[in-house]
């Protein structure tokens, strides 16, 4: 019986990219449905009525939302190329750091990118502290998952392209090889890995998009 696997995504969403990587690493055939963030389809809204966001994975008609939850679903449904380790404590660590990546690392880097002055300085300092913790997690490992790309590499993968985009636009130094040699090396290993490297969205398009987002954010905060 042919399985129906559809991924609702946008061209740039780093969250949707996580699911793309997982599906590609496992060699799963799927159909992409490209959504426009400014004009989301009724179909997407029907499949994710609570958040109305991408990514949504549709598997045999049943929708799954939230990228990290989708990763776990994909790992439990298709057993080849395991993303999460078997040991419960190792799984807990992977989940802990993925949460840390979203809640703390992403938040602080984003704030540093869109803010100015003292607020930006504080956010940058916070981001550096968080990155230092990730740096320590990589000690003795090629990937966060060990020898192979795993769940945590995929969860943190956004660092490998978005940080460069933010640095280029803002002139900030966020993740450099001097302060974070292991992370810096990991960025390259991850970016260049087969499957991963074929999926990156266009760098130039990302630059344009985030310049606009930054301006919008600046305009919104100066008008309050």
């Amino acid at each position, binding site marked *: 019986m042919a399985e129906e696997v559809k991924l609702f995504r946008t061209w740039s969403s780093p969250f949707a990219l996580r699911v793309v990587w997982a599906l590609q690493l496992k060699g799963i055939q799927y159909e992409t449905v490209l959504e426009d963030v400014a004009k989301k389809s009724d179909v997407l809204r029907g499949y994710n009525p609570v958040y109305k966001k991408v990514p949504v994975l549709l598997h045999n008609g049943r929708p*799954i939302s939230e990228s990290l939850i*989708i990763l*776990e*679903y994909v790992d439990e449904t298709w057993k080849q190329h395991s993303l999460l380790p078997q040991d419960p404590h190792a799984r*807990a660590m992977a989940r*802990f750091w993925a949460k840390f990546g979203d809640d703390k690392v992403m938040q602080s880097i984003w704030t540093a990118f869109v803010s100015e002055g003292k607020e930006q300085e504080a956010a940058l300092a916070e981001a550096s502290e968080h990155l230092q913790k990730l740096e320590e997690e990589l000690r003795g490992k090629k990937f966060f998952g060990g020898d192979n790309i795993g769940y945590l590499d995929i969860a943190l993968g956004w660092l490998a392209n978005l940080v460069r985009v933010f640095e280029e636009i803002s002139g900030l130094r966020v993740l450099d090889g001097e302060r974070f040699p292991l992370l810096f090396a990991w960025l390259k290993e991850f970016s260049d890995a087969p499957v991963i490297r074929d999926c990156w969205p266009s760098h130039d398009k990302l630059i344009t998009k985030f310049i606009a987002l930054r301006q919008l954010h600046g305009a919104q905060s100066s008008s309050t």
Partner: protein
Amino acid sequence: MIGEIETLSKSSGGDGRAEEGGDEQFARQDGALKTFKELNKKPTHHRFGLGRTEGIVLISWGFMEGVKLLGTWPSPFSYRVIWALKLKGVKFEYVEEDLGNKSDELLRCNPVHKKIPVLIHGGRPVAESTVILEYIEESWPQNPLLPQDPYDKSVARFWIRFIEDKTPVFFRFCHSTGEQQEEAIREAKKVLKTIEEHALREEDKFFAGDKIGLQDLVFGWLAWLLQALEEVVGVKLLEASEYPRLHRWVQNFRAHDVIRSDLPEHNAMLAYFKRIRETFISSSTSAV
């Protein structure tokens, strides 16, 4: 063999910290397993509130297999882990942390966030309550608290993520006044409406069916903590007429044997959240 000790009331000196086992030798005193350090110093006291009854802490034999939970009253993040362990029948040692004077053990076991709860199993710590819950589910497969089917599991996880995402709205409801509070009330009611319409089915006793699960434990604070917040603020959010399914779930949750034997005492919570609200309000007005 398992030793039992009775907990006593917490001293105001904040010496409610439990000693770590570590490499220290164990010995028995009055049938209880204690370290030499404990035997040689003043008894440490901590209350594990169980409403009208005193808490009993079980210390398991053999440090390496031991399960210890660092938590704090009346944290909903702490309670959900206590309930999960009890539902699984896992014996554990509970340590009540003083958040104003965090123990070395807590700081060592959760250096990233320095927060409770932390579960320490066989000497290895796990932090973040939802991560701990999944760890408990995977380490002790008896009495499953998550559905077996990957899709149903993803639905439970989705709602767990949802309520975690929205919890700050309810604390804002407690901490704020005026327009800020009006905004928090509106947002909180939207959250309740979403749960009512999308998360609960008419025919189900609990979120995933007839049996209590992780999703219920994570939503649990809506069944005991929210009521204290409502009373402190003087605004009712969860009206039975507006949210009949949610209201029924609250009754079912509170009636569950394991939950009701371990609910923070209502009046104590009122006093606690009243103090918190007053602190927040006076600090925000003095900052103006």
